[in-house]
Structure formats: structure tokens, C-alpha cells
């Protein structure tokens, strides 16, 4: 099996895992939210592989629905963020002055610890799901934007772009027809690699209490609940949701690096 095939296989497996989680969450919503007070605080066993919480809810069902929620939030946040990054990179491409301004804004965004910025943004938007999506989208674009800018500056001096310019095409036409299609693969890889960051930050923010509403079955909510029961020795409450989140993050990382290997095999060697 050559590198290309193994990359495709990895991406396929990861995608199947993610799709599996998203689909099974639809079936498990009922089990994850209904309380059963005869089955409270059960340790993991065959009937409840991940145990149950203090309200008798099955932790497996809750973890899976929590992951599906993370997926939705991550999808929207990372998608928005990629659009922002592309927009800012294109602004950089407009000219020297615009590049200066965009560069300064990018620097300013990177000048604050990520989590601090997320807390501030989420605070100013009043918390909740929409606030988290917007906060994650606003705070994650700078790194990708830098990559896209470098790529864009390279493409914009390519002979075919020079030719197009000499033929009198407008800047907007060149951006849209020549440069944007060239950035598309980078955008896809950027999206896939941003996803894990987005869901990790969402979970962290929710864990601190600035994220998703405590009533929703989010991984961050589960873990902050679990912290209250930690001295009672109920390890399964914290272990499984976090482990599932880790698996999801790894699946996206695998998909992202597989995509990068397929798109630019030379750079992804080491």
C-alpha cells in the first residue's frame, strides 16, 4: 500500500467514525436525557458500558449526544473561521497598505491567550451556543489566515496571474477566478485541522462556565459536573466523556493530515 492509499484509508476510517457518532447520537437522544432514579451512580457494567450519573442517565448515550453537539458547534465555528481567514487573506492581497492593516489585526488577535480571548468574547455575547460559535470563529482565524496570505502572495506573482493582469482583468476578477480556486485545498485542510482546536476550546469554555448552557448534554458540562463528584470516586463520570472527546479530536487530526498528504505530498513528508 503506498502513501496515497494509506492516507485515503485513514481519512475514510476517520470519516466513518465521525459519521457513526453523528448518526448514533440521533438514536440515543432519548436514552441520554431521560432520568432513571432506580439506576443512579452505577459503575460501568454490561447494561451501562460507561456507567450512569447521579440522575441515572446512561453515560454512553450522554457522551455520544455530547459529541454530536460538539460536532455541530465545531462545524459551524470552524466553517465561519475559515471564511474569515480567507477574507482577511484576500484583504492582504489587495495592496501594501491593506496588507499592513490586516497584518496588524492578525498580530493583535494572536497577542492575547486564546482562552482569554474566548472568555472575553463569550462574556460579551452573553454565553450560550451561538456565543460560543461566534467566539470560536473569531478567535481561530489568524493562524490559517497567515498561511493563506503566504500562499496568496506566492500565487499573485505567478506568470498566469501576471498575464491575466496584463490583459486588463480587474483585481476582483483575478482574486475570484485565479487565486481563490488555488486556495481552496488549503482552506479544506485548514478547516479539518481547525476542527479539533474548535471542539477542544468549546469544551474548555463550557467547562469553565462560559460556554454552552448547563442544561445541554455537552462534554464540557459533563466534565464540570463530574468534578463535583470526583472525591466520591466516580471516575467513570469524568473518564469516558473526555476519552470520547479525545478520540473525536484524533479522528479529525488524522483526517486533516491525511488530506494534507493527499493535497501536498511533498510538504507533508516529515
Amino acid at each position, binding site marked *: 500500500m503506498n502513501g496515497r492509499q494509506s492516507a485515503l484509508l485513514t481519512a475514510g476510517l476517520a470519516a466513518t467514525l465521525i459519521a457513526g457518532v453523528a448518526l448514533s447520537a440521533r438514536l440515543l437522544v432519548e436514552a441520554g436525557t431521560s432520568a432513571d432514579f432506580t439506576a443512579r451512580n452505577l459503575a460501568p457494567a454490561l447494561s451501562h458500558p460507561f456507567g450512569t450519573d447521579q440522575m441515572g442517565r446512561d453515560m454512553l448515550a450522554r457522551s455520544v449526544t455530547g459529541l454530536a453537539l460538539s460536532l455541530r458547534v465545531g462545524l459551524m465555528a470552524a466553517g465561519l473561521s475559515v471564511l474569515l481567514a480567507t477574507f482577511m487573506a484576500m484583504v492582504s492581497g489587495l495592496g501594501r497598505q491593506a496588507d499592513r492593516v490586516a497584518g496588524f489585526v492578525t*498580530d493583535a488577535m494572536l497577542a492575547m491567550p486564546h*482562552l482569554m480571548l474566548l472568555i472575553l468574547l463569550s462574556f460579551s455575547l452573553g454565553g450560550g451556543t451561538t456565543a460560543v460559535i461566534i467566539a470560536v470563529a473569531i478567535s481561530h482565524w489568524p493562524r490559517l489566515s497567515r498561511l493563506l496570505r503566504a500562499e496568496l502572495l506566492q500565487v499573485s506573482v505567478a506568470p498566469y496571474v501576471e498575464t491575466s493582469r496584463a490583459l486588463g482583468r480587474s483585481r476582483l476578477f483575478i482574486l475570484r477566478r485565479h487565486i481563490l480556486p488555488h486556495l481552496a485545498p488549503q482552506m479544506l485542510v485548514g478547516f479539518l485541522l481547525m476542527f*479539533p482546536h474548535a471542539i477542544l476550546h468549546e469544551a*474548555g469554555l463550557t467547562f469553565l462556565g462560559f460556554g454552552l448552557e448547563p442544561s445541554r448534554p455537552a462534554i464540557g458540562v459533563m*466534565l464540570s459536573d463530574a*468534578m463535583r463528584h470526583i472525591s466520591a470516586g466516580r471516575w467513570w463520570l469524568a473518564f469516558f466523556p473526555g476519552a470520547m472527546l479525545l478520540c473525536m479530536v484524533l479522528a479529525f487530526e488524522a483526517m486533516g493530515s491525511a488530506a494534507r498528504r493527499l493535497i501536498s505530498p511533498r510538504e507533508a513528508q516529515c
Partner: protein
Amino acid sequence: MAGVLRHLARQALLLALVALAVFLLMKASPVDPVDAYLGPAIAHVGPEQKAQIAAAWGLDRPTHEQFLAWAGHVLRGDLGQSTSYNAPVAQVMADRIKASLALTGLAWLLSGIFGFALGCWAAAQAGTWVDRTIRVYCYLLAATPTFWLALLLMMAFSVGLGWTPICCAGPIGVPPGQVSLWQKLHHLILPLVALTLFGVAQIALHTRVKLIEVLQSDYVLLARAQGATAWDIVIHHGIRNAALPALTVTMASVGEIFGGSILAEQVFAWPGLGRATVEAGMKGDLPLLLAIALLTTLIVSTGNRIADLLQARVDPRMGGA
């Protein structure tokens, strides 16, 4: 000299912009600081009293006046009054900065040292099981939620084995002044391990790539042909060339570590700046939140700046940027 001045001017402009942006964000928040301050006590407070509190805090004045008043005070060295701790912001921060430095600063230092060492080790043994183990560890750690790792450590070592205390920076009930050094270390160890485990990953991966690059270069081939042993080469050619890139990444990782420390402090109830941030955010304590945001921005942007300068040193082509 002119370069230094330009950097300073840029830094000052950056801070001013961040201050303005943060202030506007806070003002845009639907969280009412008076309500958040009162909490459950709101039932006993009438609208007149609420208006009095708002007036005492200057919240009844227009936003731009509030900002100018705040900025003027900050420039004169007065950070204001923390509403959630009911003490001057400077004092609240001074109380916590030592705990923060002990945890975050040490974690940062240790991540740099261990990350570099692990990276060198992996590169020197590239392709072997040592290399593979270190790489798997790094990828795994980079994908692990920091607070979950902290929770796991706490479950294992505090609850399960009972080796380490479950919370705080000293035994409960003992005033901070009377905590012995041994007790301090005992309470510090677990949060420190959690943060360091997390911080090592990126630095190690980066060092590894750089060192492998060096080891594949022509001058190393020459050294090898002259009969130098693998360790000779790593120590005399490798480490020197990989140290600067590693330092650059370490500088740029300050923000990550601070973000991790907010989460770790929350899990371990460590009384540092991270916990104060969460507290301030929950209670709508604008002066404290602004001050912490500015301080961390100052630290992180300085780290980034140093990283950029180092980068320019390492690779002169980046100097123009």
C-alpha cells in the same frame, strides 16, 4: 535603536487597541455588572439601591467617558477597584501573581526544558521505537483536553492513591502566611505536572523536526565521515542549531500555557490569575478582567515579539516581515 523604538511604539499601540476592544466587548455584554455582583442577594435590593451602586461605580456615565476615566487612571498606575473581591485590582493581582508565576512560569520553563530534551532524544534515535513512542505521546497529548488530563491526574493521585492534596495551594484552614515550603510544593506538584505534560508536546515535536533537518545536512555527513559518534554530532552540531528554533517555539507558547493554566487552576482550585479571570468573568468584574486581559496580552505579545526576532535571527529571510 530606532528598531527598538519602533517595536515599543507598536507594542504600545497594540496594547491601547486591545484595551479599547476589551472595554467595548465588556460594555456590549448583556451581563449587568450590578446584577452579577449582587447574585442571589438581588432579592433584597430595590431599584434605588441598584442605581446607587451603579452611580458609585460610575456606570451611569456615557461609555466613552467611562473608558477615558479608566484609561486615565491606568496611565497613572491606578488599576481601579475590583467589584467581586472588593479590593483594589492591583492588590488582588499582586496576591495571585506569585501563585500564578509558581505554577504557570514553572510549567512553561519545564515544558521548554523537557520538550527540548525529548525532541533531541527522538531525533537522535529517529525511526526507532524511542522516536515512535515520543511522537505518539506528543500527538496524543496535543489532542487531549487539558482539564480532562488534570481531572484524570487528580482522580488517580489525589482520590485513588491519596498521594497529593485535592485542592488549593495550601492545607485548608491554614492562613497563606503559615504554609510551609514543603506543603506548598506538595500542593503545587500535581497542577504543575498536568500543565507540563501538556506544554511539552509541541516543543518536542518542533525540536525533533529541526534536529532531524540538521542531522541530514552535509556538514553532519562530513562529521560522520570523520568518525564522530552519534552523540558527538548531536551535542556539537545538533543542539546548537536546534536550540534557537526550540526557544522560538517556547516563546510563542506562552499564550497556550496561560490558557492551559486557566483550566488547570479551575480544576485544582489553585488561587492564581486564571481562577481570578473566571471569577471576574462570572461576576462581571470589569476592572479586574480588563487588568488581567491587559497583563496577559502584554506577556504574550512580548513572547510573540521575541519569537519573531529570534526567527529573523535564525532565518534572515523572515527578517523583512
